[in-house]
């Protein structure tokens, strides 16, 4: 592809390089000069996808919070830090002379483009945490870094798993009602939040699907009145990959079960309350969360679906890691014993 569209911000006169045009998270057409050899990554979702595409060696700089994921991203710990996912340091980035910087759509703000344009460094906005767009974004990233083959593989895998769920769910006439609680107690995940999307993909009817606020507070009374069939909650501090057992997630579950008068709720009485680690809630592994959800919402329909197996598949084929960690409460979790 020899489109000679000048890259934004740089006074570019030559026309020997390749470049491609793609649509970013904002839906804008962006042109990127190829090849892209040096990449700075500002968040864990992007890093995970890059590793899935086999482009680890091209990552020249990483976000500062990477130490929180030290177990999962062991091989990246020696890369220079360039600042947080919300506020990167333009100078540190420029020092590393990357070709591109990959960041979320909304964080850091557009000042990053302004700061880096004078260095000729392009900022690519991709999200990788929304199920609706992740497939497209994986393909786009593949084209940008010239790993289309690997990107296709990953995208195909996502599609296959999603379809496996959607196909069966599509046949269902009446969707069970689900209460989805986000990281903060008594705050539900409504349209606009990742949790809501996951619930919909998994074939559940979110109690909060008419809400106007993505994370609205609710009362116990409301949940009781709505009588959900299943309850899902996510929790951000259970260290998924590093967990040895599900004691912690079970404790969170226990707290929900014992909330005052929650025993009046169907789902609680039947024990259909499940807690998710945040690594399978939004992000490149949200599909795993969806699979767990589907299994729990439709235990009969998905009797043959094994979320843990799917997770293992993902980690081994795409991340080059053996399966480890505990990601859900209850008896589906636990390390490989």
């Amino acid at each position, binding site marked *: 592809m020899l489109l000679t569209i000048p890259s934004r911000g740089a006074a570019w006169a030559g026309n020997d390089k390749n470049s491609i045009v793609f649509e970013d998270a904002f839906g804008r057409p962006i042109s990127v000069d190829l090849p892209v050899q040096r990449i700075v990554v500002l968040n864990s979702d992007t890093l995970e996808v890059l590793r899935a595409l086999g482009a680890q060696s091209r990552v020249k700089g990483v976000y500062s*919070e990477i130490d*929180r994921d030290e177990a999962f991203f062991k091989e990246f710990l020696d890369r220079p830090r360039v600042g*947080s996912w*919300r*506020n990167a340091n333009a100078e540190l980035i420029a020092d590393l002379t990357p070709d591109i910087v990959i960041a979320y759509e909304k964080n850091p703000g557009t000042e990053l483009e302004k700061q880096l344009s004078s260095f000729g460094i392009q900022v690519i906005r991709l999200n990788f945490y929304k199920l609706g767009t992740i497939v497209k974004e994986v393909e786009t990233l593949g084209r940008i870094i010239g790993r289309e083959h690997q990107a296709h593989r990953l995208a195909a895998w996502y599609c296959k798993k999603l379809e496996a769920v959607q196909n069966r769910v599509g046949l269902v006439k009446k969707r069970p009602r689900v209460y989805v609680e*986000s*990281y*903060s*107690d*008594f*705050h539900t995940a409504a349209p606009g939040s990742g949790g809501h999307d996951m619930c919909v993909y998994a074939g559940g009817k979110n109690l*909060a699907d*008419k*809400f*106007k*606020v993505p*994370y*609205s*507070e*609710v*009362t*116990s*009374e*409301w949940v*009781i*009145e709505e009588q959900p069939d299943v309850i899902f909650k996510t*929790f*951000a*501090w259970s260290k998924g990959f590093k967990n040895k057992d599900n004691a912690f997630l079970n404790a969170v579950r226990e*707290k929900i079960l014992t909330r*005052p*008068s929650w025993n*009046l709720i169907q789902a609680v009485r039947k024990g259909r309350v499940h807690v998710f680690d*945040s690594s399978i809630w939004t992000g490149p592994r949200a599909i795993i969360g969806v699979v767990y959800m589907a299994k729990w919402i439709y235990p009969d329909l998905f009797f043959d679906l094994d979320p843990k197996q799917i997770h293992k598949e993902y980690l081994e084929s795409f991340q080059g890691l053996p399966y480890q960690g505990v990601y859900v409460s209850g008896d589906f979790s636990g390390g490989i014993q």
Partner: protein
Amino acid sequence: MKNQYRALKCRSRVLLIFFFLLLTVIGVLSLCIGASSISVMDSILALIKDNGMARAIVLNLRLPRVFMAGLIGIGLGTAGAVFQAVLRNPLASPFTLGIGSSAGFGAVVTIIFFNGLVNEYAIVTGAFVFTLLSSFVVLGVSRYKGTTAETMILTGIALMFLFSSLSSFLQYLGTKEEVHGIVFWFFGSLSKAGYKEIILSGTMILVPIPFILRFAFDFNLMTAGDESAGALGVNVPVIRMLSIALASLMTAGAICFTGVIGFIGLVAPHIARMIFGSDHLFLIPASALIGAVLVLAADTLGRTLWLPHIIPIGIVTSFIGVPFFLFLLIRKTKEYW
């Protein structure tokens, strides 16, 4: 003349009883309102006999909420009245002395560094410890530089700015989920109020009250100036420090479980003063009652104005409190302070 004076005081007593009744009525009303479809009749009966689900909902969910709201109003209203009295300043409130900001900072610190959103009582402890810490600083500076009202107010304002900016800085360092949790804590929420929390808060809020009432006559004298009060036999430094310590404890008790519920500590005493005058023997209980009425009304409105969403109580108190207060201010012809 003595009789006229007595008549005036009698009127105040009657008004106090009126507000108490008003509080009771609003309380009962609040018990009958909720997301579930229990009838008003059932709600009231639930208090007396066991009528199944209605009882579970009213006793376990609505009643604790009503009690907690009342307690918070009493705590913040009384604390506000005390601060305004001993500091001789109509702008004094639990928050202008830095106490609210430091509680917020304590909550933020626990959330970011001590997994506060995980441990049930971590945030509570953090908020509580920092509330008292900042009042110790105010009192400590005063002992050293003299216990004038001005010293305390200036120290308080300095602390308020310090803790606010520190809180913002810490949020800057936090993850998405932590920031979420922090934001919601700052809005305030009564959803987590259970009987355990009520007993703890209740102790911190109600125990200081007899001591504060004991000082009520002294507060009257302190409005005449430190010199006059001292010459009349009031130990101004001691009473000032003790009152502030007690009022801080009440504030801590009011916000450590439920988050920041602002404006009540400022507005309730002013409304009380407009109706009852400046005799603290009546002003203190009046501020407590009016505070309780305001918080209870705010919570009920927050639960019903935008169903099924809940408008966080901190937001309702500001949105509704401010215009209401301005309205009273404009209408009132007499100078009341």
